[in-house]
């Protein structure tokens, strides 16, 4: 699948395109198929996202998982600070990142 990601302009938070808006959680990401570039253009123009780009991902039972390690780390947080990731209470949350 193809997933659209970027950063929120005022906060810098990592965000994922859900089909109707932007979520902090990769699990909400939808398959943009070949529409990624045009959605990115419109959303960037409206300043609802900053520097958006399309990536490859795999849809698993737990949700989309980015193909590249960089975006997997973006999706959760730094691998060296589990306490600062999106799921600080779950020690196994990062098992799919590396």
């Amino acid at each position, binding site marked *: 699948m193809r997933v659209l990601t970027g950063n929120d302009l005022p*906060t810098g938070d990592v965000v994922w395109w859900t089909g109707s808006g932007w979520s902090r959680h990769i699990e909400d990401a939808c398959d943009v198929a070949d529409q990624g570039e045009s959605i990115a253009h419109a959303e960037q123009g409206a300043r609802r996202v900053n520097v958006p780009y399309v990536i490859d991902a795999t849809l698993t039972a737990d949700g989309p998982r980015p*193909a590249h390690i960089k975006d997997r780390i973006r999706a959760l947080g730094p*691998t060296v*600070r589990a306490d*600062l990731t999106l799921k600080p209470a779950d020690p196994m949350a990062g098992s799919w990142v590396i």
Partner: protein
Amino acid sequence: MYKYDQYDQQMVDTRVEEFRDQVKRRLAGQITEDQFKPLRLMNGLYLQLHAYMLRVAIPYGTLDSRQMHMLAHVARKYDRGYGHFTTRQNLQFNWIKLEDAPDILAELATVEMHAIQTSGNCIRNISSDQYAGAAADEVTDPRVWAELLRQWSTFHPEFTYLPRKFKIAVIGADEDRAAMRLHDIGIQMVRQGGELGGKIFVGGGMGRTPMISHEIRDFVGSDDLLSYLEACLRVYNRYGRRDNIYKARIKILLHEIGPEDYRRQVEEEFVAVKALGLDPPKAEFDRITAFFAPPAYEADAADAIDRSDPDFAVWVDQNTAAHKQPGYAIVTISLKPTGGIPGDATAEQIDLMADLAERYSFDELRVTHAQNIVLPHVRKADLYTIWQQLDAAGLAPANLDLISDIIACPGLDYCSLANARSIPLAQKITERFADPARQRDIGELKVKISGCINACGHHHAGHIGILGVDKKGVENYQLSLGGSGAEDVSLAKITGPGFDEDGVVDAVEKVTTVYLAQREGGERFLDTYRRIGMEPFKEALYG
């Protein structure tokens, strides 16, 4: 240390308002990200993997307790309770919101701090010797020139859109603790017939194409310094390559036209600009010099240290250096605990270091390019109480310049440019070599790790250097040996094919085994490597 006058303060305050206006225009859509990016970068604001990152300037690595406390305050109020000290003697916050950035800069400005020119294709924060003003081997305090250069380079109208970033280091001793020869311009201050001046080196750098700088002038006096650098920079701004970002640093210009031709052009330009009266008068040099006068040392401070606590004695031997004043020592606080993140400090640790500096080090701290903190002027009589407080806060690893005192860039855990993670490697290596006696037996061994070819982790200058690369989406690490950023400067050479994460930790261990088997007399790792060459290490790694 230097204190702002009304002009310096007004400059920084105005900058805050300028950036507030630029952020407002960006959030309102009046400027695009493409146009905003160079503006935010010139205020040290990056967009990284998880958030914006703010790099705060610590000019020549010197700061006082009030400034240090402010860093802790920003970490608590706007970030996530910690900061990362960098190889350019600065500090980075990893979790900044764009909308908060103007307020953060306004808070920093209240303690004479800013983030000006900590990124962008301009003259970056001037770096220097962390022992400046304290080292026993010093000719003069290099921070006087560093401060002159700070002011000259701030908002320089001609050199803010250079072909590429530009880094300057100034040292004032024979021992090079600032990797001076690996800077775009390196200055070694010297005395010639009683006159103070500097030897000028140009064209060093790490990155994709590491190079050691060339000596361009053996002596430039204080009254010619700014004109001479103006000439150096103008030749670069006019002729440095702009067609290829990877060939845009001044080192490539020198490599392509040769140091002789560069020198000739600089000397011609110098004649032209010297006539313009760009250099400040001696009174300004004297004004700045006065700020760096030695502190009021206790005249009869005791030289003896009670070494009855063995852990303390080990720390004293490893983490203190000779001070020019009898009865005093230079303390390095290691930010490299076993399994820790090199250069990271919590807000509480930052506050503690500030308190110790205020109480025991004439209110001064330094940041080192090796990502540690220095208390420059400590009475030997106070060392024990300082050590106890550091130890209680996890700040007393006795490992300065040992194998666990690793330089590591933030790598792929934080940085959008990275190809591989750096921090986990540093953690694993320090865990593998956790035994302090083993570390001391190995002795001085500088391990430096970069997560991409930009070499923020100085891997080219590592006795053992490690470069993370992306091999078809998998992290892979190239090992190199024999680099040095010190006065015996050299560039590390790659050993051969790369390793995976655990493999490179094993490889580091094999390299130390070869060294221990081969070393003679008091040889450091680097000395043995230089004597026996790469082959025995290759044999152990790949044979």
